[in-house]
């Protein structure tokens, strides 16, 4: 019998074990071994699992992905950065190629005091005690096989630490490039963001295709938002339509902290993004926004979980999907309110615009509310372009194709308008505006 995904990834672990960072750190060795065991027990998620009913990773079983060792990542000419840098504009740049930080391509001059942005692998060597406190503390390999896989195989990623009251004015641009190859590559970057009390920063995690071939990325980002800190996290995904993009964002928020996530899933063959926010102390507030725009036979799945673990916590979710061709969108939003968490606001909205009758959406709220003083609202909608609005625009001389683009832009506006970086907002707006293939209207 040929090798399945489980055997393949376990073999990758064997191959890489000697070069994985932290092999001299017992805590990390233990973490990896237990993750390997968890992955061995679970294998890749299958549609038999309730959370994976609509997203099937079967294609990963037969694709012969190859592991990439840090040492084998070749140089990338720096002119490849011109385009992607333009999406975010002026920013502190840290570049990953095939999941490994490339210091030469990065641009981290003029970081203010109290802010650290560096390679996770390097930090494991230089400050292992600190990382031990945070790394892998928010995701659970036993509950999420992809986290197990990431913990077992991650080689690098970005570690950002903001000291108490450090304020980062310019955004951080984490640019994750992945080369193609035959056989295709599989990488598992892991990022860690620790925002100490009262600090603030805007961080863009930008996943970009370098060529239109198959590749797998299985990434995990953990974010600790301590008391009164404010973090904006933007995930900009522009991957090949034959890419497999598996991602997770785990957030833990302390008292009076703010966290906003903006997921811009603009391109990507098969995408799954799990977001898990824990509002651990009173006064914490999170906002999770998303815009997904699958075309052709792309598949984009967002699963969010907001855990109200303390009283006086608020969460707001707004996800909007624009779907064309025979694309598929999935939104699953779980809100969990613990029994002692009173005075809660939890709002969730998911709206979808179907531009083709072959496109489809599965949307589902899952409310688990065990406290009684809770204001919770949720709504989901799936619709088409408003014909009356289309006619209205046309009676003003705007042709049908442009009118459709305008209305699509208008639909996305609620999400794009909240983007905290002007350059990125304009970039996303023009993406949406140019998104409809003209031939299609």
């Amino acid at each position: 019998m040929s090798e399945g995904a489980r055997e393949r990834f376990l073999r990758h672990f064997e191959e890489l074990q000697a070069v994985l960072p932290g092999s001299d750190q017992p805590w990390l060795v233990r973490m990896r071994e237990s993750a390997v065991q968890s992955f061995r027990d679970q294998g890749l998620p299958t549609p038999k699992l309730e959370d994976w009913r609509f997203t099937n990773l079967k294609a990963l079983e037969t694709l012969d992905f190859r592991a990439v060792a840090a040492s084998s990542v070749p140089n990338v000419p720096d002119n490849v950065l011109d385009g992607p840098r333009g999406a975010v504009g002026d920013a502190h740049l840290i570049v990953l190629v095939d999941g490994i930080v490339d210091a030469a391509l990065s641009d981290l001059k003029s970081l203010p005091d109290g802010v650290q942005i560096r390679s996770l692998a390097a930090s494991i060597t230089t400050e292992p005690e600190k990382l031990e406190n945070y790394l892998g503390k928010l995701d659970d390999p036993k509950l999420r096989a992809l986290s197990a896989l990431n913990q077992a195989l991650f080689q690098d990623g970005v570690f950002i630490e903001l000291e108490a009251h450090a304020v980062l004015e310019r955004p951080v641009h984490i640019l994750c490039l992945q080369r193609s190859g035959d056989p295709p590559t599989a990488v598992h970057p892991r990022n860690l963001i620790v925002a100490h009390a009262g600090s603030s920063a805007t961080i863009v995690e930008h996943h970009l295709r370098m060529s239109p071939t198959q590749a797998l990325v299985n990434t995990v980002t953990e974010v600790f938002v301590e008391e009164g800190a404010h973090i904006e996290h933007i995930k900009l995904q522009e991957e090949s339509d034959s890419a497999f993009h598996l991602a997770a964002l785990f957030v833990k928020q302390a008292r009076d902290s703010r966290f906003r996530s903006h997921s811009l899933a603009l391109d990507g063959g098969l995408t799954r993004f799990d977001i898990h926010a824990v509002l651990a102390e009173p006064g914490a507030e999170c906002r999770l926004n998303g815009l997904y725009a699958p075309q052709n036979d792309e598949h984009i799945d967002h699963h969010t979980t907001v855990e109200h673990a303390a009283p006086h916590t608020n969460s707001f979710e707004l996800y909007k999907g624009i779907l064309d061709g025979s694309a598929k969108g999935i939104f699953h939003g779980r809100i969990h309110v613990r029994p002692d968490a009173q005075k809660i606001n939890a709002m969730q909205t998911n709206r979808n615009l179907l531009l083709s009758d072959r496109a489809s959406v599965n949307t589902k709220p899952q409310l688990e509310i065990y406290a009684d003083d809770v204001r919770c609202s949720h709504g989901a909608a799936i619709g088409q372009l408003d014909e009356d609005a289309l006619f209205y625009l046309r009676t003003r001389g705007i042709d049908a194709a442009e009118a459709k683009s305008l209305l699509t832009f208008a639909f996305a506006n609620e999400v794009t308008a909240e983007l905290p970086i002007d350059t990125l907002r304009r970039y996303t707006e023009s993406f949406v505006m140019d998104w409809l293939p003209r031939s299609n209207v």
Partner: protein
Amino acid sequence: MLEIRNLHAEIGGKEILRGLDLHVRPGEVHAIMGPNGSGKSTLANVLAGQPDYEVTAGEVLYHGKNLLEMPAEERAREGVFLAFQYPVEIPGITNAYFMRTSLNAQRKHRGEEEIDAVDFLSLVREKMKLIEMDEKFLNRSVNEGFSGGEKKRNEVLQMALLDPMLAILDETDSGLDIDALRIVANGVNTLRSEKHAVLVITHYQRLLSYLVPDVTHVLMGGRIVKSGDRSLAEKLEESGYGWIEEEVAKGGAPA
């Protein structure tokens, strides 16, 4: 300019316009009155190119061209403008962006250069002053949350900006307060010239006292059943439509 002959149109399998004739020359203002449901908005929509209506017979010539063959956007670019009875709300697009896009679509069609944001702003401000409309409406989403009267004023603003050859106003006066009515009428009057024509659909003679139409028509049962001068509107306001119904029933040929 506009030549409508024996127009029949239906929607959802129901025939609404049943042999409508109308002839508008450049420079003229025509008023169309008629009971609720008689087909006034249907006429306006058919002229603007609403795709849900099916024209089953008759023809419409606009400057000698077959209007019915043109898609809605082309009619607009050729100078036909409809001020909607129920303007549509479009959340997520600012009024300014929307109006500049329309103006540029029309300028491009005429082979003119596109207007940039700065020039557009000064042009639109000038028009807003004319109809006494607050500039804050530029940065709001198109018609979203506008009051009934504000929506109507926004239609007039677009008309003033686009400077159409043939403006069709579908009950633009409904929902306007008395001052607004006068201002809107002034807006329309500034459009008046020997080249422009206006079709005013209304239920009230008040607007007509400001606008003073050249001809007033009564639309009933999908046809123009009577045409006359200003006094027709006054008579209708006094006595309603009953007497015309009787006239039509007696076989009185439409004027």
